[in-house]
């Protein structure tokens, strides 16, 4: 098992290196959107095209050989020197450091609520199969996976912000973090993220729990007189937690990352998502890279945690090839 975990760790490192290298390759191979904007600006100010191009490349070290650029890029990435954000006039790392608390502020509660509620509702659906509640939960799950996050956020603003006036239309970052006003304006974003992640959670935990609801050991427990609560928590939930824990870590995290990106753009929350969106709009390449790479690394770590969790939770896991996957 130790060997397996070490191998997964090594694979995560290799994957990180691959992600960084591929990203470098992609950026190097594509026309720099920032360069054309700069050249156009210089030409308008009276400069010539080639001079502007050359000065842009010199300023960013783009006139050096590719491998030197690659080396500096990798060293920069490893030492947390992620470049300079032109539009914000501050190091990229600082911009990210200022933004991430806003993303966590509503993302973490949403993750927690959707995990607990999703598993609970899924278990209830599985044990009360084909009842009215089960159908209601399934319909709700369909609703949740089908509704576009960004549109749902807009509808919430329209109904509860514009028409009813219960929530502010735009996020105000001047209120203290630990205040009622902040909680009120984060309620709707948290709701959108919760809805998009809870649906998958419900469906998956229902399907997983269904495998155990009619198994021999649950029937035995029933025969010896275990209460329905005890059967669900001790005999169904425990084996179901193994596959569930894996989707919890990696897939759920992914859903939350995506939906928080969109929610921040719609509600104007100054977190990582909005930072990335603004960077894209304003052609700030270094910042775009950072804000795309961070969720990728988070997902990589999530995958690693998922595999390690599996080895701890499930003694049956096969450490060999991937035939069984």
């Amino acid at each position, binding site marked *: 098992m130790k060997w397996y975990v070490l191998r997964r760790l090594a*694979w995560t490192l290799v*994957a990180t290196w*691959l*992600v960084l290298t591929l*990203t470098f390759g*992609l*950026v190097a191979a*594509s026309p720099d*959107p920032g360069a054309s904007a700069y050249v156009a600006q210089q030409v308008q100010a009276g400069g010539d095209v080639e001079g502007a191009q050359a000065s842009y490349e010199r300023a960013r070290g783009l006139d050096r050989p590719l491998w030197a650029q690659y080396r500096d890029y990798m060293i920069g990435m490893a030492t947390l020197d992620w470049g300079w954000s032109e539009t914000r006039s501050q190091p990229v790392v600082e911009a990210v450091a200022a933004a991430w608390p806003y993303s966590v502020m509503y993302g973490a509660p949403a993750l927690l609520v959707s995990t607990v509620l999703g598993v609970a509702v899924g278990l209830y659906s599985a044990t009360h199969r084909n009842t009215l509640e089960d159908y209601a939960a399934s319909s709700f799950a*369909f*609703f949740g*996976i*089908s*509704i*576009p*996050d*960004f*549109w749902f956020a*807009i*509808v919430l*603003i*329209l109904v509860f*912000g*514009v028409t009813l006036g219960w929530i502010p*239309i735009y996020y105000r970052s001047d209120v203290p973090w630990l205040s009622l006003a902040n909680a009120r304006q984060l309620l709707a974003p948290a709701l959108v993220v919760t809805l998009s992640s809870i649906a998958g959670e419900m469906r998956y935990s229902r*399907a997983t729990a*269904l495998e155990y609801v009619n198994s021999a050991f649950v029937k035995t427990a029933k025969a010896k007189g275990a209460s329905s609560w005890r059967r669900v928590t001790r005999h169904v939930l425990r084996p179901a937690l193994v596959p569930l824990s894996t989707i919890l870590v990696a897939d759920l995290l*992914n859903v939350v*990352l*995506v939906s928080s*990106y*969109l929610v921040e*753009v*719609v509600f104007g929350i100054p977190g990582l998502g909005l930072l*990335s*969106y603004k960077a*894209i*709009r304003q052609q700030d390449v270094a910042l*775009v*890279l950072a804000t*795309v790479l961070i*969720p*990728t690394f988070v*997902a*990589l770590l999530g*995958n690693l945690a998922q595999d390690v969790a599996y080895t701890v939770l499930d003694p049956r896991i096969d450490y060999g090839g*991937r*035939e069984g*996957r």
Partner: protein
Amino acid sequence: MSGESDESDRFEDVDWAALESTGAALAPRTAVVLVGALGIVAIVGYETLLATGAGPTVAWPVAYRATPLDGLFALTMLVVLAYGIHPLYDNPRLTRRYWATFRRNRAAVWSLWFLAVVFGLGLAGPMLLAKPELNVAAGYQPPVYTAVPTTVSGTCVGPVVDGMCRGTWRHPLGTTGRGKDVLVSVIYGMRVSLQVGLITTLIIVLLGTTVGTVAAYSGGLVDEALMRYVDVQLTFPTFFLYLLLLYLFGGTLFLLIVIFGLTSWGGTARLVRSEALQRREEGYVRAARSSGAGTAWIVRRHVVPNVSNTVVTNASLLVPSLILFEATFSFLGLGDPTVPSWGQVIAAGRGDLATAWWISTIPGVFLFLTVLALNFVGDALRDALDPRAAS
């Protein structure tokens, strides 16, 4: 199955001629698809490489000029017809059995009707309706039967009653702030969603099935290399990979589809591979091999048809997610600015939520319903095609 007594079940009716035909002669269906594909490639090739001038090549019955995207879409429709619809027509008994299971899911049947309407409108609408154009004189017109203050709409196309501008049938779903008709934009958006959903899924299915079966059949180093590559591909979170690629290379719908298609087949390949590994051990494959069938023949005639149900189920769930992705990136401004897609209209109305509610909400309703319907249909398809997965 024991109660069935249909003609084709009887042993005497087995079409020996078809079974004995060798791989040298093309099956009629393959021939039709090949001829059609060549025709499409020829037309698009002519239009992009040889045709001169910027105007339409054909003036009648509608002014038209084929683009690479149209060509890809036509190819997709051809393949869907030949390998998706034709077998159903060809094999009515199987179709009836599938339909009997499918029909049990009432939501899915309604969804199918809704999707048929969206499909028809998306195909025919853009040919009959002119592309929505900017018309500053008709901005912020409300949908029919609703009214907004004239301070919002400015000049009002419809009647003004008590200072309220009322919607007219000229713009049944209202107009955007710059006067684009929302209904026409929604219909054009249907075609965009159709194209993204179908073409991308076809690319993914083709690449995924090829890689999956080749990996399962070759084994050894080829398998290892292909699956390692799939691991790497699946390492990137899809959304952020698309985001980066569209930011760096995007700009047209064609490129968006290519980017989605070329980077998203990992999951399908993995699924097909594990299915194909199981099929490889089945008796009929061993029987075919012992009677001298080659690997290519076995893969084409025995393995691919037998994993096709898994592939169809997988594909039916890919379509809604791809449509959602396209809408999302159009909303973020990374789509094709020249194509009126749903996400783009939703984004256009975002700044006017307080005054013009209809711009952002109406295309979203269509997006939501389409994705919901596709999910329902996909769910029912899985129940109908894959009896093992039915819980």
